[in-house]
């Protein structure tokens, strides 16, 4: 009896599903995704907005909740530490994007020459970006050690500088570059791969026509290659920009914001405020400001990107 019921159930379920209209299927298929995103993304976002108007502290949940209006926002925007972390973030963002675009685009141009074995070497180059930034970032602290570290040793080999005379992570001058170097090492392949797709999307006949018109290599690059790859480059900048604005894992494991707060990116500062000082209300306001900044910038950027694409 029980077995019979068990055997019949899937059939009944199937029967019911068979009878579903397209509209019902659309609804049933999308609803779980939207519900989960509402529960784990949107509800927390709304909660953060709410908390940003209060003096809530997560380590004192029983303290009386006070409505403080926009005071948290005013405090964040008047905080010189916040402006410093934003400046650090801007430096990081700017240099990583410039370096990754130049090296990535350059590599893509070279790989596009289709030399023998380019597929294999491309795969080798791609490896760093797929790996865990925290684990790899942590290992870079080892490579950056003066004396015993491989990085210092190699620099010393090529320049003759004493490997124990400089500390990439410990020094105020070099630490901001230490994180730029590791991020560039990790994410240049990303830009390269996107640029490669852009280069391969250019049909050969355009170059053939340019060749017939006796256009120089230089001219071909500026008038054909660059404009055709530009939308791809801009897309790469968008993705890298968003990712590096949110950057946390790699830099936390590398320098944890130090020395002092020389490499303290916005996310690291936010983590300190929220999970070490437990200023939940204040850090919620900071989080909202960061989110609105990325969201706004990304929207404006996408509009610009679409205009370039339409040209």
């Amino acid at each position, binding site marked *: 009896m029980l077995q019979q019921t068990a055997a019949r159930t899937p059939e009944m379920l199937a029967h019911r599903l068979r009878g579903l209209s397209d509209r019902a299927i659309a609804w049933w298929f999308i609803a779980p995704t939207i519900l989960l995103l509402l529960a784990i993304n949107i509800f927390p976002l709304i909660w953060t907005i709410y908390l940003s108007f209060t003096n809530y502290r997560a380590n004192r949940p029983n303290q009386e909740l006070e409505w403080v209006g926009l005071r948290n926002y005013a405090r964040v925007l008047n905080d010189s530490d916040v402006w410093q972390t934003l400046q650090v973030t801007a430096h990081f963002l700017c240099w990583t994007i410039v370096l990754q675009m130049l090296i990535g685009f350059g590599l893509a141009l070279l790989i596009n020459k289709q030399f023998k074995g380019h597929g294999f070497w491309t795969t080798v180059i791609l490896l760093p970006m797929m790996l865990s930034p925290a684990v790899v970032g942590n290992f870079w602290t*080892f490579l950056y050690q003066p004396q015993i570290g491989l990085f210092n040793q190699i620099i010393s080999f090529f320049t003759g500088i004493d490997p124990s005379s400089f500390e990439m992570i410990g020094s105020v001058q070099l630490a901001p570059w230490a994180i730029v170097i590791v991020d560039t090492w990790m994410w240049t392949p990303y830009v390269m791969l996107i640029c490669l797709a852009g280069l*391969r999307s250019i049909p050969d006949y355009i170059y053939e026509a340019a060749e017939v018109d006796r256009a120089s290599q230089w001219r071909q690059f500026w008038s054909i290659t660059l404009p055709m790859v530009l939308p791809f480059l801009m897309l790469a900048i968008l993705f890298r920009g968003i990712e590096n604005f949110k950057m946390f894992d790699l830099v936390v494991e590398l320098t944890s914001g130090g020395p002092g707060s020389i490499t303290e990116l916005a996310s690291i500062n936010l983590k300190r405020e929220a999970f070490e000082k437990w200023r939940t209300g204040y850090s919620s306001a900071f989080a909202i400001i960061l989110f609105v900044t990325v969201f706004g910038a990304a929207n404006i950027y996408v509009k610009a990107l679409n205009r370039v694409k339409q040209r």
Partner: protein
Amino acid sequence: MTGLSTAHSVVEPRRWTRRIAAAVVIIYALIAILPLLWIFMTGFKTPPDSISYPPKIVFSPTLEGYCNLFTTRTRQTDEYIASLPPAESLCDQIARDRHMVIAGPSKFGPRFFNSVIIGFGSTFLAVFLGTLAAYAFSRFKVPLKDDLMFFVLSTRMMPPIAVAIPIFLMYRSLGLSDTHLGMILLYTAVNLSLAVWLLKGFIDEIPREYEEAAMIDGYSRFQAFIKVVLPQASTGIAATAIFCLIFAWNEYAFAVLLTSGRAQTAPPFIPIIIGEGGQDWPAVAAGATLFLIPIVLFTILLRQHLLRGITFGAVRK
């Protein structure tokens, strides 16, 4: 692929151009791979070898790093060690040579296992839900479709720490903090945006005529989805699953903030492997090697779909 040029085309790069290009790319690749090779090599060094000055390129390999990774050891007097029965295993012997005795297993095994459970659990859920949603977005007129798709994507723009503040409070009151279920749900939500966008691209490429033909043959819409669309989309689904798995595998910010003991994954754990007097670099490197190797294999497997995955399906080859 329009880039493949014919043998005697005018745009064919000259031979020496090609050679220079190859040389530069190979030099870059070798430099880029060097830190990874160094991780691999350090895993087989003894602790003194790993911190020697200048760094050792030639060394006699040992499994000490791997032994230290999986065990905890205590220092003992030589008399005590001499009084023990002969060492049973290689790791035992290595520990005794360092005047230590193995005290028990380390936490690396359980942390690695947590990574596997949370990685596979969240990947399965994200791909399952993502396939359904992607099919609906691809085939049906959904009201506000573009807005919903953008909403799905915008959830990726939040800095993880900003999301972690309310999630931390929410999980604390629901009893989900430091649980596998909590982490699986969180990673599923984060991965869903990627899964929906990627899978929609893959399903868009399957001609509608296939299902329509099946439906004329008497299949219902649901049957056509199961029996026609899913098999056609299987490569795309597999690629998407690997991308989700890699994300969950590598994720650090949520793991470090929301887990501590029970459900902690490997990325927050590997950097805090401590030996006597500082970080035990061979053990860290051994842990990193074991942790990174699956991803290296997956990357090679995924090569064809990599571009799509990292751009949320915005660029297809």
